[in-house]
């Protein structure tokens, strides 16, 4: 496909712009993408997490843009975007882990080979220990919403976790 901006070079970047409820998708070549502020893919790959992040960015763009399946553009708790994470390699807050859960899972699998913590469990001071029954019901609810939003990868993970617990 040729670049939609210059119409001459091969498009290598898919730029997805979210403006209110409207989503515009543009296929661009590297120089035109750079003009629009999309950073150099090569440069990103040079940072320690860069290669993973670059791959992750592609994955997000490649995801089908079903309602509910697209990751939220910005973390409601701290205002960090996925682009911020791609640039710095650092998340903005604990909520980012939920907001960008989908792409982060892919990254965790590549970095650690898994997404599941199996070490020490933390008990927050002043809170009742988590009731295993309550955890199962919350996972079930999470599974239902994953199926409804056709996030099958997440659904499979949750199903495996539930099987492990039951």
């Amino acid at each position: 496909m040729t670049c939609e901006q210059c119409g001459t070079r091969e498009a290598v970047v898919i730029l997805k712009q979210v403006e209110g409820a409207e989503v515009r998708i543009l296929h661009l070549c590297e120089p035109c993408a750079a003009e629009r502020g999309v950073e150099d893919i090569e440069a990103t790959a040079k940072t320690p997490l860069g290669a993973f992040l670059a791959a992750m960015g592609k994955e997000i763009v490649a995801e089908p843009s079903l309602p509910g399946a697209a990751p939220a553009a910005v973390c409601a708790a701290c205002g960090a975007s996925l682009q911020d994470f791609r640039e710095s390699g650092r998340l903005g807050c604990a909520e980012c882990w939920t907001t960008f859960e989908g792409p982060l899972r892919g990254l965790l699998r590549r970095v650690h080979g898994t997404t599941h913590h199996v070490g020490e469990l933390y008990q927050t001071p002043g809170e009742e220990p988590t009731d295993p029954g309550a955890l199962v019901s919350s996972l079930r609810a999470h599974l239902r919403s994953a199926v409804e939003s056709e996030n099958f990868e997440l659904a499979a993970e949750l199903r495996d976790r539930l099987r492990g617990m039951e």
Partner: protein
Amino acid sequence: MIDLSLLADGGIGWLDASGPANHLVLSTRVRLARNLRGRTFGVRNSARDREEILDEVVAAAADSPGLAGAAVFRLDRLDSVDRELLHERHLVSKELAGLGRNDRVRIGAALLVRDRLGAMVNEEDHLRLQGVVSGFAPEAAYAEVDRLDGELGQRLAFAFHPEFGYLTACPTNVGTGLRASVLIHLPGLVLTKEISKVLQSLAQVGLTFRGLYGEGSEVVGNFFQLSNQTTLGKSEPELLDLLAKMVRQVIAYEEEARAVLLRDAPAVIEDKVWRAYGLLRYARALSFEETMNLLSGVRLGVGLKLIPDVGVYALNKLLVHTQPAHLAAGRGLSTDDPTLPIRRAEYVRTVLQDEGRRAG
């Protein structure tokens, strides 16, 4: 200059060469990354956030047996030579000390330290807890920091996710937040050119290596920091076991390489280690890199029992005190002072002379 006498052993008790396999392993360190719940992570913290985080941590630490009475160093209130000094003691990261090319020390960046325990505050994560012990002892180092983690975790609420574990700013640290590393001297494997094979095999099982000063640093004086690369999907004991098992193998390879060197080229090795000793003992100006390389030769000679009059403790002391900020800070100089090589050589001569007298 900062007053390191606040610390019983200057924060470098691990130098005393009392731990297991101390002829090869200088120290074992285990660190845990933790963040406070309900607060944004480091990259998004304002100066005020960082001040509040530091206050919270200091209050919790004062109340926890592991860090009660700890010395508190506010990096943001120290000049660069003192920050570098703490970095040279492996007490703070380059990032926290604001020593990177594009780094500036951030408001609220602090170090709490007591005996073998330390806590970096307002690094990339709110808390980096660490336990450091002499020699090769991952379990002992973990036991120390695990106790502190438990104490602080009862007084502060940590960010924890039922599936991802302890949440960190960088996904490479999530889960256990645990990085265990050993600082090991491997001249035998370097001289026999076996080192790259060994390092490659470590990478295959999920371990990685770094230089003398950790992340992003170069290997100097044949010192390697071996550590676990992944933090998620294995329990803390499993991560420690993996590192311990592999380090035991690396130690065995290093011993084998040394035996081969002694068997195949005894005269060359003997000449090499005594030359290193001779230069350190009599040189009048020494650069830091040259000193590290020569100390590596002498350490090998001591390990092979070719050089009788030098103790491992003295070598460890030389390793720390010949670093630029250590030489500069005590003498009121800057780290690029042109007289440092001369002062370094003077210091090395004195220590080796004392060692000779002590032994002789």
